[in-house]
């Protein structure tokens, strides 16, 4: 009997349950549409209800149930589900179908007037659409609902605006018909899927569970998802409709309508199935990547549930979320102020922003600083992350602006390490994190830099020895480089003065000069050397010939004494004397042979710049010199 129908919006009370919005059959006598038996969807208030122990799980529920054949416990659970607005996600398929049977009967069997039809049908259609989404996971139900809707709902305009998507609730909680309609419109009109729609779809998509980072940090995930969506998919993903148009023959699900025949509807362009598989695959891969980048942050929050504003947590956020993050703004300002250019900037550890430090107790903060700086477009060496979280206890950090190419990084590392007073294990860790060729480059660079700073030189040499040995280059090379650098400093050697100047907190390192040409001789240096050589030649020339123009102020003890004058006269007799003959000349004068030769030669040198007597036996006399002496 039509009287049993409770129209939408009318409340009815069955047992202890008040069902507020109708859309059910209540009564004691309603024949099934097939002609025999009772209508399956008919709720007979006279039947017992076991409201103290409802069977929420639907144990003993048949696949196509009938209210009259339900157990009292199932009836209680069913009525409770109805009273609860038919929304519980855990409701068994049987209850959903039981309700759906009633809607089917109303839509397909009951003869209604046009007025009633116009008033009721949209409500019933919307309800089916809602259930379709809500209980999407019941494939059989979904199939029936989709086809029923395709058969009876009025045509939709695919080009109509879609507006804002419904705000998704719990993950996997399906969104309403309006959302599904929006998706269908996008698909039909081949419009791209906007980011917020994509996120809403992903979030409410039940069969694809999202990973923990998305669930734990929903706001960050959503922001990251939307921030990256455009770069990943441009204006948006295209949703494809399946070829299948929904329509055709509809077979009612209700057993009470069995053998009533099926309803033939034409396939409708506006009711095509969406290709959710392709969409899901793309969005899940994208979401997976987002989750991965949020992993560290999520884990940190897992350990420190209240720490979302800590810098340590903020440092783990992906780059997109960091820009403008209130916790990172002061650091960004500091970096902007302190690091003027792309080249290395040396910053004393004591000048780091408050909260960061290189002392062993605060080394972890360096990792935070490295993470933050990297995401803000900066970098520094030694990078604590490369050395296995063993950030070296350095006195200076060398900052650079991204993108620092490999050379800038190495230069920075060398700069920072060259300021260390002694070798440490950390330093070796820093070196070993590099490729062998880079190790050698850095070590030599440190050598150059350290040699430029003569303060506490022995300690620096000790440092160099260990460094060179660590890089497998040998100590000898260290000494050579150190020595070479002191003698002939490279033009770009560091000459920073270590004294602290309160007004200046950083020191600009000049950019390295362009590599010199492969020309073998450097004209400037050659000219310098020629000048020096000329200078040294004249210096030496003056020394080796000065005896000719003797300094007049020198004490003049050069005049030959009386015995020498006699000897010189004797020597003039021959230009070659045997030693014994020479001795015979000297002895009467009381002069020793060698001392005499020495003295006479000395006189000769002063007077003529040459030796008078040469050889020991025989002794040759230079007559030219002799003439000058006598």
């Amino acid at each position, binding site marked *: 009997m039509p009287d049993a129908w409770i129209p939408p919006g009318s409340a009815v009370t069955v047992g202890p349950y008040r069902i507020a919005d109708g859309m059910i059959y209540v009564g004691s006598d309603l024949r099934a549409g097939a002609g025999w038996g009772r209508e399956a969807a008919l709720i007979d208030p006279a039947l017992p209800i076991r409201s103290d122990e409802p069977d929420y799980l639907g144990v003993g529920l048949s696949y196509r149930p009938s209210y009259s054949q339900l157990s009292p416990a199932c009836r209680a659970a069913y009525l409770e589900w109805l009273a609860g607005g038919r929304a519980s996600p855990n409701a068994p398929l049987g209850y959903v179908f039981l309700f759906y049977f009633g809607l089917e009967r109303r839509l397909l069997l009951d003869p209604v007037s046009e007025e009633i039809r116009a008033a009721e049908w949209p409500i019933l259609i919307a309800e089916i659409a809602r259930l379709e989404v809500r209980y999407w996971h019941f494939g059989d139900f979904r199939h029936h609902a989709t086809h029923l809707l395709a058969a009876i709902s009025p045509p939709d305009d695919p080009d109509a605006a879609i507006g804002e998507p419904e705000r998704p609730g719990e993950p996997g909680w399906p969104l309403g018909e309006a959302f599904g309609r929006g998706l269908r419109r996008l698909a039909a009109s081949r419009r791209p899927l906007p980011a917020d729609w994509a996120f809403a779809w992903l979030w409410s998509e039940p069969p694809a569970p999202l990973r923990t980072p998305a669930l734990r940090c929903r706001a960050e995930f959503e922001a990251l998802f939307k921030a990256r969506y455009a770069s990943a998919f441009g204006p948006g993903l295209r949703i494809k409709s399946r070829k299948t148009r929904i329509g055709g023959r509809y077979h009612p699900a209700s057993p009470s309508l069995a053998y009533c025949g099926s309803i033939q509807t034409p396939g409708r362009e506006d009711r095509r199935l969406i290709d959710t598989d392709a969409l899901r695959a793309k969005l899940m891969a994208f979401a997976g990547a987002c989750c991965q980048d949020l992993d560290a942050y999520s884990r940190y929050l897992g350990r420190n549930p209240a720490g979302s504003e800590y810098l340590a947590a903020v440092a783990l956020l992906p780059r997109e979320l960091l820009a403008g993050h209130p916790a990172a703004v002061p650091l960004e300002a500091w970096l902007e102020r302190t690091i003027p250019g792309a080249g290395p900037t040396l910053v004393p550890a004591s000048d780091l922003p408050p909260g960061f430090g290189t002392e062993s107790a605060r080394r972890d903060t360096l990792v935070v600083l490295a993470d933050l700086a990297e995401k803000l477009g900066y970098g520094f060496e030694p990078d604590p992350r490369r050395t296995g979280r063993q950030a070296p206890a350095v006195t200076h950090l060398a900052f650079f602006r991204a993108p620092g190419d490999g050379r800038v990084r190495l230069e920075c590392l060398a700069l920072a390490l060259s300021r260390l007073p002694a070798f440490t294990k950390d330093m070796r860790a820093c070196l070993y994190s590099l490729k062998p060729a880079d190790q050698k480059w850095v070590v030599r660079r440190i050598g150059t830099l350290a040699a*430029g700073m*003569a*303060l506490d*030189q*022995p300690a620096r*040499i*000790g440092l160099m*020895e260990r460094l060179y040995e660590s890089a497998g280059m040998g*100590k*000898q090379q*260290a*000494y*050579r480089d*150190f*020595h*070479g650098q*002191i*003698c*002939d*400093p490279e033009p770009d*050697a*560091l*000459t920073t003065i270590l004294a602290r100047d309160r007004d200046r907190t950083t020191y600009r390192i000049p950019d390295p000069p362009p590599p010199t040409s492969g020309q*073998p*001789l*450097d004209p400037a*240096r*050659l000219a310098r*050397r*020629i000048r*020096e*050589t*000329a*200078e*040294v*030649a*004249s*210096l*030496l*020339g003056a*020394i*080796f010939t000065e*005896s000719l123009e003797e300094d007049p102020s020198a004490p003049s*003890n050069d005049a030959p*004494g*009386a*015995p020498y004058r006699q000897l010189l006269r004797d020597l003039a007799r021959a230009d070659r004397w045997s030693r014994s003959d020479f001795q015979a000349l000297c002895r009467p004068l*009381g*002069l*020793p*042979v*060698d*001392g005499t*030769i*020495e*003295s006479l*030669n*000395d006189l000769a*040198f002063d007077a003529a710049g040459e*030796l008078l007597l040469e050889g020991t036996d025989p002794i040759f006399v230079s007559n030219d010199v002799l003439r000058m002496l006598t």
Partner: protein
Amino acid sequence: MTTPSASIKPKDRDAILLSLGAGIVPRTGHKHIQVGRTAELKALLADLLRIAQGGSAFRLVVGDYGAGKTFFLHLVRAIALEKKLVVVNADLTPDKRLQATAGQARALYAELMKSMATRSRPEGGAMASVLERFVTLAVSAAQEAGASPEAVIRKRLARLEECVGGFDLARVVAAYWQGFDKGDDRLQAAAVRWLRGEYATRSEARADLGVRAIVDDASFYDHLKLLARFVRMAGYEGLLVCLDELVNLYKLAHTQARNANYERILTILNDCLQGGAEGLGFLLGGTPEFLLDTRRGLYSYPALQSRLAENAFATGGLIDHSGPILRLSNLTAEDFYLLLLNIRNVQAGGDESRFLLPETALTAFLDHCSRQLGDKYFRTPRTCIKAFVNLLAVLDQNPEAKWEALVGTVAVESERDPDLEPPEGVPGGDELATFRLN
């Protein structure tokens, strides 16, 4: 290009070319081939002047293998001789060192005395000359004053007696005078032998000369100081001691022996810088590792470390040559080129018309060396210079030969730095890996 000396004596020319052709540093004529190093030379000239004025000097010349330490030392030696200093020089070896207990220091002393050179005897062996010069001066003074030479000598020698070991030295010099006076050649020879540190036992010296002391390991430095005073009394300006190859101390495997030698260097350094020595200068030549190695080098000895550390303000191209360390920079390609120019000039006797090679040939030769030995060929100039001198010799003797054909064929052997080899008896150079039973 350079300013060639007006003319180069054939004797100097041959000596230079022969030495260079044999791969060794010439003993004369440095002024003709020296390239650059003006500041360093000026610093040492100042040192020599100070010595001549009765002061003292200490320099450690540090240069890498092939930087020209030995050449520089020889040049300074030649200048010192010209400045009327007496110069003694020796290379340190494992058997000749500054501090030892088994005669090695005495052996070094003997080596030094054997090499004693003056301006008139630049080739060495001038001990007798110096002694007799002293005697001669005394005799002249005695004749002018009308006193007996013996009295004058005794009076002069009295000034030595106030020094450690001075009494014995005075007696030996007096013995020499007596030998001369009495025509006793044996006594004279014994005195010279004593002064040369060649007496191994005291009893022998006592029998020959009547002195109770000899030059031994412990008195090595005291005798050098005495000798410095003595040569000034003999009319010379002072004594310059040149010691090369100090790296041999670095190579001593025995830590205590090494440290004892470093301590001796410290003593000398302190003495010279504080003015404890009179008319005495030390010039030591060593390699960077000898200085810098913090485990085995001079820097391993803390007291030396602080004294030898670089002037903290002399960085980034600024230089300070007033410290005890004088660093010689490595040769550059430009230096090497100028050196070749100078050698060409020496070969031609300073006469431009006799140059055997144009300057383009020198560049070609540099290219050739660079190809044979690699980029840093000028760091080890010995073999290249040898090859160049040989090339000049061939061109000189075969006027028909063309340099273009010859330059490319010159074989230039690569050179190995002996200091890079592990120290003798120390496998792998690790002192912890070896031990010695004494």
